[in-house]
Every structure is written in structure tokens, then in C-alpha cells.
């Protein structure tokens, strides 16, 4: 890891100022950024530690949505009575990120800002059609995830909270690598009235919606409805853990399981 300056601002406004340096990066739990820095994939001039900013923490109900502060750790979402009651699939997803120690440190905002293809949270954000709140605006999930490790966030824009709509039904299923526990392929499904969303993570370079499955589930909400739909392997990831064809196959299997889990 290359060395860097370290700042710990107390407010979002101060953090935004520090991040005006284009080579500075924000950090909270550090559980995706620090591994990347160890590989020298990135050489930030400074790390701006957001963990001292109280306004970025907490879970609250706001109308027909659950709003979760960016610094809320995975363990807090996983064990929140409010999240479990309103969107159990989101609490389930959070309770299966990485392992216990990762969940004790990793944060919602960090995971979503980083947009690792194999991260869990982007599937829930896109699969629920959440709204991302930042230091300067609100962004719809459909406009947020742009590509591998790339989001609509500007360099000095901080993700402050995510507003997850409370839906009728939602479910998540994933196949994870047994050693790293990163997602090989995962599917998050949700249904709210006639509106169905299917988000796929882990399989491609970036989380994406599966339109054909959404259409089939809107007509018939059941695992059988997606059982015959084959995901094209063309743009999916191939690595030492699995081929694009294997991941494509997993997408259908995980979609069936996600719908079954949603009930």
C-alpha cells in the first residue's frame, strides 16, 4: 500500500471540501478500499475517513420507505427490527455479506459507492428501485450504476443515505465463492403492485436488470415463470472461479430461488 494523508472530518460539508482534491478518496469501513490499496490498484493522495460524521448514521422509516444512512454498518442493517419488519429481504442480504467481521466494519455507502461487481448491496438498490441521496442531489438506482467500479457519483460527491421503498414482496439468492464469500451470481427480485424488478449481481461487470425475467414475473409471479429463461453469457464475467456460461446458468437458478424466497 502506498502511503497517503489521513483526514477525519466531522461534517459532510468538510468532507466534500477535502474531497475536492481529485486524488483523495473517501473511506468508511474500508473493507473494499483497503484490499484494493494493498494491491496498489489505486494511489490516493489522501483518505477522507467519513466514520466521524454522525449525520450519516442510522436507520429510519420515512413514509413508505426505509432510509438508511451511508455509514450504517452491514451488521446494523442485518439486525434492525425496522428493516426486518419492512423489507426482510434487505436484512437477509445484509446478514449474508462477507462474514461476521466484514459485517462489523463494512458500510452500506461504501459498498454501493464502490460498486464492486461482486458486492451484494447493489442488487438490493437496483432490485428495489431505491433512491440514492448524495451531498448534492438524489439519484434513481437506474441511473446510478454505470459500470465496473463506476457510479454516477462525482469525485467530491458523497453518498449520504439510501431510500429503499417498502414493496409487497422481495427476495435475494446468491451463489458465493466459498473462500472469498464474494458473489458469483446473485439475483434480487421485488414486486410492488404490478411493478416487478429483477437485478443481477456478481455475474456481469456491473449489476443489471433482467428485463425478460421481469416481464415473465409480472405475468406470473412464481419460480416456474423464470425457470425457462436463459441469461445470455456474452457480457458476463469469466475468471478462475467460473466461466461466463456457468454464471449465466446460475442467474436462472438464483432467480428461481429468489422468487421462492420472496414467496
Amino acid at each position: 500500500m502506498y502511503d497517503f494523508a489521513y483526514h477525519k472530518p466531522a461534517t459532510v460539508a468538510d468532507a466534500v471540501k477535502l474531497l475536492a482534491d481529485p486524488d483523495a478518496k473517501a473511506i468508511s469501513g474500508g473493507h473494499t478500499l483497503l484490499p484494493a490499496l494493498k494491491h496498489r490498484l489505486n494511489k490516493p493522495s489522501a483518505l477522507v475517513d467519513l466514520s466521524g460524521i454522525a449525520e450519516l448514521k442510522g436507520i429510519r422509516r420515512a413514509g413508505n420507505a426505509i432510509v438508511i444512512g451511508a455509514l450504517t454498518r452491514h451488521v446494523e442493517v442485518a439486525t434492525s427490527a425496522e428493516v426486518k419488519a419492512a423489507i426482510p429481504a434487505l436484512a437477509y442480504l445484509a446478514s449474508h455479506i462477507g462474514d461476521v467481521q466484514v459485517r462489523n466494519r463494512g458500510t452500506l455507502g461504501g459498498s454501493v459507492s464502490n460498486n464492486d461487481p461482486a458486492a451484494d448491496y447493489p442488487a438490493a438498490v437496483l432490485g428495489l428501485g431505491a433512491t440514492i441521496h448524495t451531498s448534492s442531489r438524489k439519484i434513481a438506482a437506474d441511473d446510478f450504476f454505470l459500470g465496473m467500479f463506476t457510479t454516477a457519483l462525482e469525485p467530491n460527491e458523497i453518498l449520504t443515505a439510501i431510500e429503499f421503498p417498502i414493496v409487497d414482496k422481495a427476495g435475494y439468492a446468491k451463489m458465493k465463492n466459498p473462500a472469498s464469500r464474494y458473489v458469483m451470481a446473485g439475483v434480487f427480485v421485488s414486486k410492488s403492485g404490478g411493478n416487478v424488478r429483477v437485478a443481477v449481481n456478481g455475474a456481469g461487470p456491473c449489476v443489471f436488470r433482467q428485463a425478460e425475467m421481469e416481464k415473465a414475473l409480472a405475468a406470473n409471479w412464481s419460480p416456474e415463470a423464470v425457470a425457462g429463461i436463459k441469461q445470455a453469457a456474452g457480457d458476463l464475467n469469466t475468471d478462475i472461479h467460473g466461466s461466463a456460461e456457468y454464471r449465466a446458468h446460475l442467474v436462472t437458478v438464483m432467480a428461481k430461488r429468489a422468487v421462492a424466497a420472496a414467496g
Partner: protein
Amino acid sequence: MPQVTLTVNGQTHTAEVEGRTLLVELLREKLRLTGTHVGCDTSQCGACVVHINGESVKSCTTLAVMADGANVTTIEGLAKPDGTLHPMQEAFREYHALQCGFCTPGMVMSAIDLVQKNPQGLTEQEIREGLEGNLCRCTGYHNIVKAIAAAADVMHGKRSEIARAAE
């Protein structure tokens, strides 16, 4: 260079570190607490687990500066000053829950957090799932799981001593 002040095993330390210094490097190289191990250095194996403010974390993926003001407990901080082992350590010894011992400090620290967070008790399956962040290459986990179950009974006051392992 940034300065950090933290409490480790009840003692307050102040140290100069680089921004990039990992908590495990501070513990091992500056404070000479070498019981905390570095295995994979990629937050997967769990050999580096310590407690920060009572919660298990991977110290290879935590910057020392991020632990400023924190209360850290390492494997060295578990036994009493007279050498009496923590029930979890005693149980690992009684149940032969280690062979080479490399993963053991992290296993013990994760196991204590797991037991403390589950005062209602733990099934064998819950113990196995609770250890997902700790890898062991020797034991096959079986005796580790037995040791944790035995330690939980003592930590939650159901027994006064670790149940003896079957001969």
C-alpha cells in the same frame, strides 16, 4: 505522521504511525503483541481478528488511525494476570481445538464475540456459520465447534467449569 492513542488490553498506548499503517502492524510491530497473526492479508482467513470496542474485526483490514480512541482486545488480553485462561482458551485446550495453532488467536477472538452476542445459546450449525470468517487448515473445525459449545456454557453461567472432553 499521524499519532494514535488507543487502549490495548487495558493499557493506553500512543504511537506515531503512517496513514497506511494497519492496526495489525501497530499491534505486532510497535506494541510487540505478536499473538495476533497475519494469514491471508486479504480479510478472508481471520487469523488477525481482534476486538475493537467489544466487536470482532479483521485487524489486517483496519487502519491504525481508524482505531484512534478505541478499546482494543487481543489474544494477549484474555487470560488473567495470574495466568488463568479465559474459558474459551481453556476449552480450546481441553478439546484439542488446534493443531498448528496459526489460526487459533483469531478463532478464539471470533468465538468469544459469537458467544457474547448469543446469550440464548448456539446450535452446532450456528457455531459453524458464526466461524465463516475464520479458516483453519488442520483441524477440520470439528473440535473447534465442540470447544466453543463448551466455553459458551461457562461464559453464560450454565456450568462453572469447562466440561471434560470424552477420553
